[in-house]
């Protein structure tokens, strides 16, 4: 367990709802949930979630800290905003799902092998480095993230798609070598660094 994680358990004396309210994006909304179940019924990948949004909110109130934060569920949010526009209590559910996933990552207890977790981290690293996303690089890394042999298999399976995209001018080999980037890289990076510092100062206080 990371220090931040154990620190948080002590700080909130196991009151997980308070912890979520203080540290998770839009977490102060969780207590407003009236358990109607509309969100869970609206979720496109809902059948694959161990705990759909309604259940996660109930579990937060019941103090099931590890079960919530280590869950793969919220990593299957496609950001379709179905739940958010339908919730009778107007909870920003999509953002709470992202917020829970981010908070678990910050504490270092997220489900490491979850594919969207891996993809999302690659996406962020690619973006934070260049200011723009390099789709080809992202794709190549994605295929190989589960090891070399598996990477070859995935890449072979996806090769038809890549080739089609390449032929139609929608995938550029140039991108892999140089590729898309912002000009003011140093300003861009300094901005991200500052934002991260300010945010960490808030969470750690």
């Amino acid at each position, binding site marked *: 367990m990371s220090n931040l994680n154990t620190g948080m358990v002590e700080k909130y004396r196991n009151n997980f709802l308070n912890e979520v309210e203080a540290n998770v994006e839009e977490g102060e909304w969780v207590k407003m949930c009236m358990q109607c179940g509309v969100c869970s019924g609206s979720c496109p990948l809902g059948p694959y979630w161990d705990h759909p949004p309604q259940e996660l909110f109930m579990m937060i109130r019941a103090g099931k800290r590890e079960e919530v934060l280590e869950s793969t569920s919220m990593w299957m949010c496609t950001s379709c905003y179905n739940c958010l526009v339908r919730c009778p209590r107007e909870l920003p559910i999509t953002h709470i799902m992202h917020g829970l996933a981010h908070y678990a990552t910050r504490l270092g207890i997220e489900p490491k092998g979850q594919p969207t977790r891996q993809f999302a981290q690659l996406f962020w690293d690619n973006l934070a480095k260049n200011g723009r996303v390099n789709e080809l690089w992202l794709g190549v890394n994605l295929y190989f993230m589960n090891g070399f042999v598996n990477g070859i298999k995935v890449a072979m399976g996806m090769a038809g798609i890549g080739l089609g995209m390449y032929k139609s*001018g929608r995938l550029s080999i140039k991108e892999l070598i140089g590729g898309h980037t912002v000009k003011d890289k140093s300003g861009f990076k300094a901005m991200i660094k500052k934002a991260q510092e300010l945010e960490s100062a808030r969470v750690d206080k």
Partner: protein
Amino acid sequence: MSKEYSFYPGCSSQEGASSSNYLKSVQSMCDVLDIKLNVIPDWNCCSASIGYCGGGELPRLALSARNIALSEKHNQGQDIVATCAACWLATKETQERLDDDAGLMDETNQALAEAGLKIENKTKIRHMVEVLIEDIGYEEMGKHVSKPLDGIKIAGYVGCQTNRPFGIEGESFENPKYLDKFIETLGAEPVEKYDKKVSCCGGALAFSEPEKSQALIKDIIEAAYDGGADMIVTPCPVCQMNVEVYQDKINATYGTKFNMPVTYYSTLMSVAYGKNSKQSGLNGQIIKAKKLEEVASK
């Protein structure tokens, strides 16, 4: 006099990227409608809906705030226009969040100062379809049609993020009609009661959860076939890519025989406005839009 906007193309529409053909057709369409797009100098990626893993709230807000600040500096007084649903959404969400929370606004400006920028947050953030509906209007859009898309039946797939949570003024979340109206305006026939028009295709998860997403995509294409569609049209680059490029894989898994072209509203407009196949980005199709090709070569 041409209408000028501050343009945010986003990663997927830059040259050599997966939706570069979208950009092409948008340029052709804007050329006819006398819309001038001034690209935001040195714009950065907004991190879409998938940046939350590595990026906390503030770093993500800073990303879109930088674009707004650059726009306010270089394209002063012009509304920001995005063609990507996710770009539009992320930028608009940032604007709202900063408006609601003075503390976040202050911290965002501290971060921006590191790049020598400052955000006023007074700029309107719009999707290209809003510009078409609100600033141009259906009537004017129809006036420029030189090659009506007669006899083509089209399923208008709106998807999620162009529709929720903000949506288009005057349209409902569950059954928006504007894409069908676009189709009619151009002389084609919309599929009535296309029940998958606002269903999710999996978005970015098409990459990380391919089987689960392809099951969603299969239903979207099947419903279009059921409605007698010749093709699908969408306003979202992620939708376009997801619904078009995985059809072979879906066929292999489910034994279907899908071969359904998927284009943008701007592709339709560009063709109906008399632009050729290349100008309309039709060469970027992986599944050829044969009926549009026929019109374009007339």
